[in-house]
């Protein structure tokens, strides 16, 4: 029973992360990783980004985007490895690595965005 309910929680995180990733990642990825480095658009200055990051809701937004996306990855990647590579005998190791990675990323995001002490 306990196993089933934790699976439901993990699935909810996967689902919420799927929505967040679908809605938010394309625009962030396109702007910061493609359009600005390629010089298609003028990148925002350091000061402007720091101004945005001083807003608490921006940091909460970024935290949720990072954390939920990682839990989305953890769930999907876990089943890809189970089914795609037929490695069910490594279940527990894969489970630990995937969700451990998501938790580690969440903690790191919390550390970066929690006590923002930018210059």
């Amino acid at each position, binding site marked *: 029973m306990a196993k089933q309910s934790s699976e439901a929680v993990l699935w909810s995180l996967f689902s919420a992360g799927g929505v967040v990733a*679908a809605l938010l990642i394309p625009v962030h990825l*396109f702007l910061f990783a493609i359009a*600005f480095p390629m010089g298609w658009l003028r990148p925002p200055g350091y000061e402007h980004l720091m101004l945005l990051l001083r807003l608490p809701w921006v940091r909460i937004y970024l935290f949720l985007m990072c954390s939920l*996306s990682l839990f989305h990855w953890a769930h999907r990647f876990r089943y890809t490895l189970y089914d795609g590579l037929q490695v069910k005998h490594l279940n527990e190791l894969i489970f630990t690595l995937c969700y451990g990675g998501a938790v580690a990323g969440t903690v790191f995001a919390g550390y970066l965005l929690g006590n923002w002490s930018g210059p």
Partner: protein
Amino acid sequence: MFAVKQPTTKVLPLYQEFHPRWYRPRVSVYWWLGQWQYLKFILREISSVFVAVFVVITLLQLRALRAGPEAYARFQHWLQSPIALAINGISLFFVLFHTITWFNLAPRAMAVRFRGKRLPEILIAAPNYVVWALVSAGVTWLVLR
């Protein structure tokens, strides 16, 4: 229950009474390469890896921003390198694949009926795309302002 005397040798009998032999053909590890539908499924699943790659790069970017203007300039310089552009280009392809497949799942997940008829899938998927466009425009506006 077991009226039949068990054999004393370690050799398993080839045939047991009332016990069906399962038909379980072995599936190749590369089963998903055979059909476009299967390949699409695996590509969709693999998109999650690039979601994680994006998060890692974003967290490194935030760390660079925290470290100061010089560190951030170095990070921006790294983003211009061919390897970073290649990774992020592939990521964008997979993330868009995730977005489209995710949005198009909505009509399958909920069958909305109107006057006894199922609404066409496009009508249920369309709001997702509208929200996507609005959110993308909002983020772009905030960043470029």
